[in-house]
């Protein structure tokens, strides 16, 4: 087994770790916040909020 074989295993392992983080955080986020909050973004609202802060 040379360095490239080791790198193949490292790449598989790192991929699993990144995937695990994403899925774990996704599950936690979906559990912690209501669907209304998560989907509360509205197009154009950022502009309105910015205008509010300026006033």
């Amino acid at each position, binding site marked *: 087994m*040379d*360095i*490239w074989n080791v790198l*193949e*295993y490292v*790449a*598989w392992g*790192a*991929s699993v770790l*990144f*995937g695990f*983080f*994403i*899925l774990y*955080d*996704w599950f936690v*986020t*979906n*559990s*912690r*916040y*209501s*669907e209304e*909050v*998560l*989907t*509360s*973004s*509205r*197009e*154009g*609202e*950022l*502009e309105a*909020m*910015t205008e509010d802060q300026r006033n």
Partner: protein
Amino acid sequence: MANISTSAPEKVGLLRVLGPAHVWALGVGIVLVGEYMGWNFAVGKGGAYAALIACWFAGLLYTCVAMIDSEVTSTVAAAGGQYTQAKHIVGPLMAFNVGLYLVFAYTMLEAANAITIGFLMDAVATMTGHEGLDQRPFIVLAIMFLAWLNYRGVLATLTFSLVITAFAFSAVIVLFLATAVLTGDSPLRHADLMTDLPYGWVGVLAAMHFGLWYYLGIEGTTQAAEEVRSPARSLPFGTLAGIMTLLIAATLTWYVSAGLMPWEYLGQAGVPLFDAARLSGSTLLMVLLGIGTLFATLASANGCINDASRAWFAMGRDHYLPSWFGAVHPTYRTPFRAIVFLVPIALIFALGAPLDQVITFSILSGLLEYTFMPINMIMFRRKWPLDSIKRGYVHPFHPIPALVLLTLCGTTYFAVFLGYGTQLVAMVAFYIVVSLWFHFWRYRFVNRGAQFTMPWPRPKGY
């Protein structure tokens, strides 16, 4: 069932944290890989001069794209880019189609980049004496790492893109300076290597298909519209600086490569800039361009994830797709469900489809998008003349850029039809079918009044 935290915010949205440099990095980062590989197939289609003509014609096409995009998007500052523009200016059916063009173009390009990363790792392994590297773990790692980065926040994602894109662009400049300017005995042999057009002007036409590779994706800057601090200033500035960067990079790339390799070899090389560095005889340049190739590929995949997810998210938010996709992460402020949903699609294409088919699917979707742009621009100026809406940028010579873009798109369709006619017809058939689905089924779920959010006056003539 979901538990609501006591500290939970009432509303969440994307964050305005980006500057013009991030917009530049997003646009150039997606495209620059085309200078490192892909553009040179234009040489194979029609010789070195044909590739140069294609480079400049495609440059003209994309300059029109950049100018048109800069004007419209400086006014429509929302995620979704051309999808959102189409929704406000043309109509829902056009918007649905443009949204799909964007998602397919970027997701396929992401898959193609991941395949390329696997190929690059294999090439490096072979150079060090290791045969038969399994490319799959590196393909999967590239997609998973970049998806994680995108999931965690847009500022870190595009700052990462900025660093590696700047490195990759600098490597092209260094290669040019080292081979053409700073050496007393230049290795460039244009006088010996240049030939007439081997396939005549038909070859030039066929070269247009791959000439797009020099710039394909610069229009992706518009997807940052909802996350830049000052859209009216940053988007035109970043986009126009991006197309200027690419025009320089494309011309230098052609000049160095055509001076070092005969067109018969250059036309089928896998990594032409890396090959050019190897032929220069400098180990330092070889290492620099090798890292540049990897960084350009990573930056492209990174930008593609960012853009495809914003388009998918915007369509979900408007209920053009299930509204579940319109969710924003309360901590990271990213469209996290759209990002995650597109990961398995990219993996399936990266691991299971041939590279040329994936690239063709991406180019065709991009071409359909470019055809929409001039129509969009003409309608925008007609419905909302210059004195009716304040724009962050007003592009000159209207309607000439729109008409030039439309003409060049027509020429490119013919060039694509010569090489990939079946795929072109199949793709148009696909979009017709999904349009029928949207018109007869999906549109009933759309809140028709809520989708038009721009505080614009009533369009002229309505």
